[in-house]
């Protein structure tokens, strides 16, 4: 890395009067300087306050009203929440979210880490392989969903392919099965994001201190335990960033699900994001949509806030994501 530095410049000829005048100016400037960082940060804070938290408040207010097709302010207490919980689609959505989110995050982290470790082994075609694992993230959800819908289609996709190639007993009809369809969403989503997680871990791996590894091996430790005891724990910061990104993507899953399964068969791949969208915009149930959104946010907060809090509390002196 190129580092710039400037030569010291000290002006020895300063009269006391000048120094005093300069001193006064300097303290005014210092006051301004002290304020400047906060000023620079404030647009972002104001924007976040208004456009994130303000809108969250708005949605929360809506969830307590009787809004249906359009927003009204007739108080409805917890009725909308009750209606959401009574709705069979919501039960399916919540259950699916548990399956989907946990599998998505765990698989992406695991596959990302595994691929990163493999790629870290001084592979010759590293650049090409990395590009192959990374490119799915570049595709929009519409494209991903459409492509995978084709591949997993029992009549046109993989099944037909293997039949044509002679393996006639092959069957892969998860996408049309009530129970298994959600796993197809997991497949497509993991395919899309695991490469990105891999890149993050790869960068983390490359920053690990070689001396520690050398020392450990001299002490007689073997590769698996070197990974387990030394390398992976130092990747903790990468886990945070990866988790933030994965949770963000899991919450945003609407377009992928719609493109891949349309929340079907029936509504067996309904997720809170598709539930929220359809009730808010299509089914003329603004209040229910808002209630489901509030619950989703609470869930995300319940998981992410304690985690972020615990990770950010200890003072870190350089190093770490």
């Amino acid at each position, binding site marked *: 890395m*190129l*580092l710039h530095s*400037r030569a010291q*410049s000290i002006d020895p000829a300063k009269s006391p009067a000048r120094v005093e005048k300069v001193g006064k100016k300097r303290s005014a400037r210092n006051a301004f*300087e002290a304020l400047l*960082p*906060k000023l*620079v*940060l404030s647009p*972002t804070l104001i*924007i*976040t306050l208004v*456009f*994130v*938290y*303000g809108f969250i408040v708005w*949605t929360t207010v809506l969830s307590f009203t009787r809004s249906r097709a359009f927003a009204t302010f007739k108080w409805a207490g917890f009725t909308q929440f009750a209606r959401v919980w009574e709705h069979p689609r919501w039960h399916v959505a919540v259950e699916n979210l548990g399956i989907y989110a946990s599998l998505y995050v765990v698989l992406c982290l695991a596959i990302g880490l595994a691929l990163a470790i*493999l790629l870290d082994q*001084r*592979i010759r075609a590293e*650049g090409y*392989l990395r*590009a192959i*694992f990374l490119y*799915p*993230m*570049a*595709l*929009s959800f*519409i*494209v*991903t969903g459409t*492509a*995978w819908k*084709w591949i997993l289609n029992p009549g*046109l*996709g993989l099944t037909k*392919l293997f039949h044509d190639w002679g393996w006639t007993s092959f069957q892969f009809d998860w996408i049309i099965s009530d129970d298994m369809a959600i796993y197809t969403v997991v497949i497509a989503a993991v*395919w899309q994001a695991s*490469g990105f997680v891999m*890149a*993050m871990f*790869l*960068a*983390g791996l*490359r920053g690990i201190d*070689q001396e520690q*590894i050398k020392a450990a*091996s001299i002490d007689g430790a073997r*590769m698996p335990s*070197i*990974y387990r005891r030394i390398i992976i724990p130092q990747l903790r*910061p990468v886990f945070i*960033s990866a988790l*933030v990104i994965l949770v963000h993507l899991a919450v945003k899953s*609407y377009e992928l699900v719609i493109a891949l399964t349309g929340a079907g068969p029936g509504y067996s791949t309904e997720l809170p994001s598709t539930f*929220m969208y359809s009730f808010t915009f299509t089914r003329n149930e603004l209040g229910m*949509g808002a209630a489901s959104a509030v619950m989703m*946010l609470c869930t995300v907060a319940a998981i992410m806030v304690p985690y972020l*809090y615990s990770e950010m509390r200890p003072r870190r002196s350089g190093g770490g994501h």
Partner: protein
Amino acid sequence: MAAKTWDSPQMVVGKHNNVSRIVIYSMLLIVALVYLVPLVVMLLTSFKPLQEVYAGNILALPHEWTLAAWEKAWGSACVGLDCSGVKGFFWNSFRMVFSAVFLSTLIGALNGYVLTKWRFKGDNVLFALVLFGCFIPFQIVLIPMATFLGKIGLAQSITGLVFVHVVYGLCFTTLYFRNYYIAFPDELVKAAMIDGARFFRIFFRILLPNSVPIITVTVIWQFTNIWNDFLFGASFTTGASAPITVALNNIVNTSTGVKEYNVQMATAMIAALPTLLVYVVGGRYFVRGLMAGSVKG
């Protein structure tokens, strides 16, 4: 590519044999093939005439290679009444994305700078507050934001759309830069301050020039997200000024019309090309950019 300055742990330890190399290579190869399948399917389908698409299987090579679907997608596919393909929308997306990426990256960099080099009480809390914005589902945002944009008169304009993307990109850009700058040596900043450099000078002279890797990461992430956005693009533009995702959606999701799968795949590929290029070309900077604290090597 720059000379590698690291060794894999295996090499450091001195244990690495041919069998394990073969295993490693084969595993990577198999996974790579799986990852490539969707891209191959999309490409093959886009080069086939429609009859072959209906009749054949997804990995079959075209009997008749044809560029017709691509030509149609670019210049004559119907995205509504207008049957002149997606080329206009392609340029719309470009114009919109550049501004949005530039602004959100710049502001994110300044934020990261402030949060790491100009610490004050409670800055971690503020950071967490900003970070939480990454989780807000866009559906919550749509109607209130539309109301707001309407009130300030920016409703159906590229400026409005850029504004929206900047607002909701700030949490990520701040995250990336903050994580990068936190590992940036404080001594350099202090040295510059002693020299008399002030807030902005330190930023533009010391930090930014050394931030190329993280700028690359941020730009890649923002470019991809904003380029691929559909909901905001559809809601905050009209007609011919829409981004390419709207055109793609119109071609892929015709509800009661004939579906030309080859044209759909060609359109999807055209829509994906810039982001693909950005990822593939920027890939190496990507990993380098994420290597905060790699100075100690």
